[in-house]
């Protein structure tokens, strides 16, 4: 599904990603953990080319998206992304937020796009908030709308960039529940998070990143129980 080969990213002289090679299979839920500044978010943003990799290759469904002539829009249509700070469009209702891209990008009629938006709102449990503006919603509700917005494009992969980090504790569960349901439906997901409970319960594989490289990866039970590397052990001892 996704194949990453020796991916590098530099911001000026700052070498953030120093050679990432990994694969994500169809239907797999990959959880990326690691200390802040380890390059987790940058890695995720390289997958839908919000950041342009300095070197290396990314393939999504066999398409080399790091090709300079690749159609960026076509790639992004297939890759949904959920952000730490939701990034809902404040001048649109929840419904309009979700219906915008299917209408303007996929070319659905307004009615079709809105019908799909209602379905998705139903799925994230917010049908009654269709006509509300983002700042009338709680953080957890906003993030659920943001997930629905990304799903409206019917992407093949969903990227989550610390989706619960900006939320009050009591709202984290409602967002994780939506994500769990999504994983159960077989969605391919790459999730950067600090929620170890989620990683353990839903993750098929956990990747531990530090200083721009993958230090260790493996099934969550193994990685959490028997970390091989000293750096992984140190990190886990701090957060578990």
């Amino acid at each position, binding site marked *: 599904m996704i194949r990453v080969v020796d991916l590098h990213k530099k911001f000026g002289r700052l070498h953030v990603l120093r050679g990432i090679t990994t694969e994500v299979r169809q239907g797999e839920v990959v959880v990326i953990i690691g200390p802040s500044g380890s390059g987790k978010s940058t890695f995720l943003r390289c997958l*839908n080319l*919000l950041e342009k990799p300095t070197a290396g290759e990314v393939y999504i469904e066999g398409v080399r998206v790091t090709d300079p002539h690749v159609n*960026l*829009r*076509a790639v*992004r*249509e297939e*890759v*949904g*992304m959920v*952000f730490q*700070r939701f*990034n*809902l*469009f*404040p*001048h649109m209702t929840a419904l309009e937020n979700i219906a*915008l*891209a299917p209408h*303007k*990008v996929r070319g659905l009629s307004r009615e079709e796009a809105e019908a799909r938006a209602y379905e998705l709102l139903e799925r994230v449990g917010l049908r009654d908030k269709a*006509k*509300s*503006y983002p*700042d*009338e919603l709680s953080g957890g509700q906003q993030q659920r709308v*943001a997930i629905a*917005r*990304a799903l409206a*494009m019917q992407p093949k992969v969903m990227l989550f960039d610390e989706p619960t980090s900006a939320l009050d504790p009591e709202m984290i569960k409602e967002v994780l529940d939506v994500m769990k349901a999504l994983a159960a439906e077989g969605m391919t997901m790459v999730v950067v998070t600090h929620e170890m409970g989620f990683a353990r319960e839903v993750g098929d594989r956990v990747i531990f990143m530090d200083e721009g490289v993958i230090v260790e990866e493996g099934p969550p039970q193994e990685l959490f129980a028997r970390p091989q590397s000293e750096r992984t052990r140190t990190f886990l001892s701090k957060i578990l």
Partner: protein
Amino acid sequence: MVLHWELIWRSLPLLLAGALMTVQLATIAVGLGIVIGTVAGMARLSQVKPVAILSRCYIDFIRGTPLLVQIFMVYMGLPQLTGVVIPPYYAAIIALSINSGAYVAEIVRAGIQSIDRGQTEAALSLGLSPSQVMRYVILPQAFRRIIPPLGNEFIAMLKDSSLVSAIALEELVRKGQIIITRTFRPFDIWLVVALLYLVMTILISRLVDWSERKLKVKPVEEREEEAARATAWEGGGFGPWLQMASLLRVRRPARERGEETT
């Protein structure tokens, strides 16, 4: 020193006609300025270097030179180059619009840049093209934020348009000059001219405040009521305007709305 009330009274129709011309000039100039400025403001932020540099040159030239010189260049300079004489009214419109466009461009640029980067990223990640991102996500938000500075630009233009009196266009200042040459009562007339400007600028700033308040979004129930009314009006041709107004709406703080909904 006593004011010559009868003279003031008799001059008023002429001065009001001048004031009307002043308002007309400022309105057209800022209207065209918004069109020019939106294009130039976006061009200024363009990834295409020559476009950005060209826009930058335009903005710097206009903001770095006196408006009076620009007016003379259009009114007297252009005819020398092209051989086509431009009537004062059109020369004034051209010069003022080009001038306003440069100031609006900077307002638009600041408005666009004030929108959080995350908005662009979210829109791009959904597969929208850069121009769709601009049109559906960035500009609608930016335009709400620039209403107050646009109001200031209009007030500034209203006052600066007095410079076109130098090419004998009969706006408010020129009318004042004409009356004074006939009556030799400069104090009375300039006082009235000043007061007329004051009245206009105060009215405009009130109008801007009002429209700012008007453009804020109301609670859900009120919005639905209005939508119902709007559809009822559509036959009257107001539909598009109401839609445009709703596009520009901003939310009111939750606290404020809470008080009203209870």
